[in-house]
């Protein structure tokens, strides 16, 4: 999700625009005091603004489409989870910039109408920077329009998901400076400038930074004249455990063996589901999956309980890796560092 406070419909009140995991941008209109429940932003044909997959709330299933692909096709299958309103082409109305959580591209959907009567184009356009498509292999978590270098032009800040659970590289934050001048009728982005490097997931005994799913916001947090970053995301760390005596070491080994056995039981159940649903289309798959799972429900519950208890006991002796979400402040020292080096304020 990517909440953005912006006067989307030009009525003088701030609205909330957000892309969410259902695959579309939404807006909650404001009246200056409250916001209405959100509605989906549609294109000029009355269809949802999407990339290649979205959740159909009526059919209650994921749907795939290529109707919004850029001319010539999309570089990869995309799934929108973030969106912001930004006047990309400087024509006085908000276009939409869309972040792709599945393949890591950024797209533009132009508004051919006005803020009061928007007419969003039927197709997406691939957003480029420095002549190349913006592409984060860790996929896009969030996009933000900010004036990072204080030149009066909106730049694009893009953050990455990174490998959400495994040991591979985590997410980071980059800014693409807008190099257009005020007379240009377009946004021209330069090469990526890293603000927060991608996490290497160094296992520390305490959380030390957001590692995956980075969602940044830029604001002058401390009022010193530069933009600081507030960043939501998951941290991954492994607490230090107690020193174990021989008895505890043996107990730990036994519990780990039990956990492994229980995990194999769980895998065997899912193998039955996989075999029973092989080759089925989406609708039949969902139905059959639920049918088999229901027949195994008691076994799944028993396994889950056993795994939870074993994990808790193991964790007390040898702490397991943690993954918890927080919101972090990155205080920008650029202004103060410049002041210090030049002696000027």
């Amino acid at each position: 999700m990517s909440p953005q406070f912006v006067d989307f419909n030009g009525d003088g009140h701030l609205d909330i625009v957000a892309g969410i995991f259902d695959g579309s941008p939404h807006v909650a209109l404001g009246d200056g005091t409250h916001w209405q429940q959100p509605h989906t932003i549609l294109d000029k044909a009355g269809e949802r603004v999407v990339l290649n997959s979205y959740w159909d709330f009526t059919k209650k299933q994921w749907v795939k489409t290529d109707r919004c692909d850029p001319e010539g096709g999309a570089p990869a299958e995309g799934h929108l989870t973030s969106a912001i309103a930004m006047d990309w082409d400087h024509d006085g109305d908000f276009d939409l910039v869309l972040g792709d959580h599945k393949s890591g591209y950024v797209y533009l959907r132009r508004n051919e109408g006005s803020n009061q009567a928007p007419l969003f184009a039927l197709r997406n356009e691939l957003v480029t920077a420095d002549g190349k498509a913006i592409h984060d292999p860790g996929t896009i978590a969030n996009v933000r329009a900010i004036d990072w270098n204080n030149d009066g032009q909106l730049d694009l800040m893009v953050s990455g998901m990174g490998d959400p659970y495994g040991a591979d590289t985590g997410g980071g934050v980059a800014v693409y400076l807008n190099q257009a001048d005020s007379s240009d009728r377009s946004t021209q982005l330069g090469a990526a400038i890293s603000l927060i490097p991608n996490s290497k997931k160094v296992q520390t005994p305490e959380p030390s930074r957001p590692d995956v799913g980075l969602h940044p916001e830029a604001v002058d947090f401390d009022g010193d004249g530069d933009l600081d970053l507030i960043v939501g995301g998951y941290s991954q760390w492994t607490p230090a455990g107690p020193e174990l005596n021989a008895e505890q070491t043996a107990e730990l080994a036994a519990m780990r063996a039990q956990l492994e056995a229980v995990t194999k039981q769980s895998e065997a159940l899912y193998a039955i589901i996989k075999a029973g649903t092989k080759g089925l289309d989406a609708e039949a798959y969902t139905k059959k999956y639920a049918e088999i799972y229901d027949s195994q429900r008691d076994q799944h519950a028993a396994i889950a309980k056993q795994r939870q208890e074993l994990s808790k006991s193991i964790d007390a002796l040898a702490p397991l890796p943690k993954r918890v979400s927080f919101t972090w402040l990155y205080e920008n020292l650029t202004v103060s560092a410049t002041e210090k080096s030049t002696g000027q304020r």
Partner: protein
Amino acid sequence: MQTQRPRLALTALTCATLTSLAFAQGTLFKAPVRLHAGDKMLGMGRMYPSPAAHDLNGDGRFDIVVGDLRGHLTFALQQADGTFASEQKLMDAKGKVLDFGNW
């Protein structure tokens, strides 16, 4: 207009690392610290917390709104001393939770 420097609530760990700096192609950042709202950590445990800064109550100080993957929003009002009050759910005019929905 905000003139007061917010006082940050820091964890014990970060005290030791506050002096270390992260350098990112011309931009210097202090080592990151976790933000608090009331007596809890801001956005802790939410599914993919996504903060936005906005002055919700018109007191001249930015507050922090946190969205999440479930499509819900909370807000933490910035107080006069720069700390943030406990998170509250953002409601619509009828008192219902503002719900961006999900799949």
